[in-house]
């Protein structure tokens, strides 16, 4: 029994008929499985996982959900205004972020042999900033420049910039440089070469990145407002604080409808862009 178990972990050695010894290939799967099980147990202890409690007290959250399922329609005007604000915040933030990202991504891609030190520094800064969630930007900005839609827009723009620039420069590094070299050999300036030879190749990808960012920003808009940075999140926070869950229900309904519409449209457009 123990021997059987042992050769799961330790590779066997076989002796061939000519006396040569052959070792089986080492298989690390059992070790990975044991490690994962240990990790799960440790994490579960750490986070007090208790599904029995969850199923026992399942009805506790029910009143909240039921009240949200009966939206209060008289709140429609405020909800509509908040949603429009949110959409405009996402639009403007995405536009500014991606407009700055486009020229910057040319400077950050390694195939133009621009300044290498600058490239390395800027890239590592970007990867640090990318790890911070939008929430942190929104919190800091709304403290510094005041609560309101401006902070939300700025936070969205910064987040969009950090995400879009990485996707773009990785794409630019894979383009065909032949056209660029051909234009360069005719004596065109570097900027002109980039616009005429590289940009047409990444145009579709750029548009699809912008749409993707817009989608993400609409989705995170609820959180932005939650810390006071304008839009529908502010109303969500208010209504939950006042226990007006019927109003929350309406807000969530509007939010879900907009998110689904934006997502579906953007997916269709992106599919068209990628397939030409």
């Amino acid at each position, binding site marked *: 029994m123990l021997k059987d178990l042992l050769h799961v972990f330790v590779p066997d050695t076989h002796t061939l008929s000519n006396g040569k010894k052959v070792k089986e290939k080492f298989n690390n799967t059992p070790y990975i499985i044991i490690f994962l099980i240990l*990790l*799960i147990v*440790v*994490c*579960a202890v*750490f*986070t*007090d*996982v*208790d599904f029995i*409690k*969850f199923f026992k*007290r*399942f009805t*506790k*959250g029910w009143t*909240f*959900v039921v009240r949200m399922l009966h939206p209060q329609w008289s709140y429609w005007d405020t909800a509509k205004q908040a949603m429009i*604000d949110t959409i*405009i*915040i996402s*639009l*403007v933030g995405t*536009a500014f972020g991606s407009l700055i990202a486009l020229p910057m991504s040319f400077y950050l891609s390694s195939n133009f042999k621009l300044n290498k030190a600058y490239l390395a520094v800027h890239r590592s800064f970007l*990867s*640090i900033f990318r*790890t*911070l*969630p939008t*929430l*942190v930007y929104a*919190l*800091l900005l709304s*403290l*510094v*420049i*005041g609560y*309101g*839609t*401006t902070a939300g*827009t700025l936070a969205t723009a910064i987040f969009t910039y950090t995400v879009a620039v990485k996707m773009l420069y990785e794409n630019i590094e894979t383009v065909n440089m032949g056209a660029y070299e051909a234009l360069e050999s005719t004596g065109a300036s570097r900027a002109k070469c980039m616009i005429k030879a590289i940009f047409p190749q990444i145009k579709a990808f750029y548009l699809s990145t912008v749409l993707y960012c817009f989608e993400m920003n609409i*989705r995170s808009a*609820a*959180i932005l407002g*939650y*810390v006071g940075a*304008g839009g529908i*999140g502010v109303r*969500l926070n208010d209504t*939950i604080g006042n226990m007006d869950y019927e109003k*929350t229900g309406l807000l*969530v309904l509007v*939010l*879900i*409808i907009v*998110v*689904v519409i934006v*997502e*579906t449209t953007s997916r269709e457009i992106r599919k068209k862009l990628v397939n030409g």
Partner: protein
Amino acid sequence: MSEKLTVKKQYEKYPNSLPFFIALFIGIVVLYLLTDYICTFKGMSEMGWVLAKNAINGILHPNVDKLFSLDESCVPYLLAETFSIAFLGTLVGAILALPFAFFSSRNITNNVCAYTGLTIISILRGFPTVLYGIIFVKIVGTGPFAGVLTMSISSMGMLTKLLIEAIEDVDKGVIEALDASGCTTFQKVRYGIIPQLSSNILSTIIYRLDINVKNATVLGLCAAGGIGAELIFSIGGRRWNDCGAYLLGLVILVLVLEFVSTKIRRKLATGE
């Protein structure tokens, strides 16, 4: 064939960029109007400058005590908690997402099932994470367990979407070949479907784990555990040195995870 290629003729073939510039102009005007509508910003107040200066100064000088002590409100403990929440949340989310993904893949079930599944997923994805958090906190009380539940529900949507793509890409030829050689259904699943899917599914799950750790801050808004609550309180209370420590911890955790997950995913994709 007597046409000669002249510079003038070629030049006339140059694409007309007027429509592009008109579109650009309209775009800029619209953007300006929208910005004007949304920006209520009337210049920074004196207070704002002081705050910004303090914030940058504090964040660049993180509180070393918070960074290394093993107390419950200090960085190592909170990071471990955040990682645990994200890890278990992703795992439970994946377990929930797998049957859902099989149910709504067009090549396994019919179109009606697929559309129903996709609609449910869209609605689940549209529902804000914070609200899931609030609901689960109401059910199981504040603490990391609520965070695990929130994470699992909120990552289920995206996982399902990516898994559906993986399942719809499955090569049916392999299954037919196994069928022809007389395999049972179990053998077909074991040797025909699982090897094709496993690396894709694993890589999706690891990718989502990455995102979940990054997004775990949001759980702090509804007291569902993790580093988020402390981070938000430290910013609200203007304890910039603590805030710097938390941010530094978060950045390191995310960067390390990103590095590891990229390595594993590359290995899964190329088999090296």
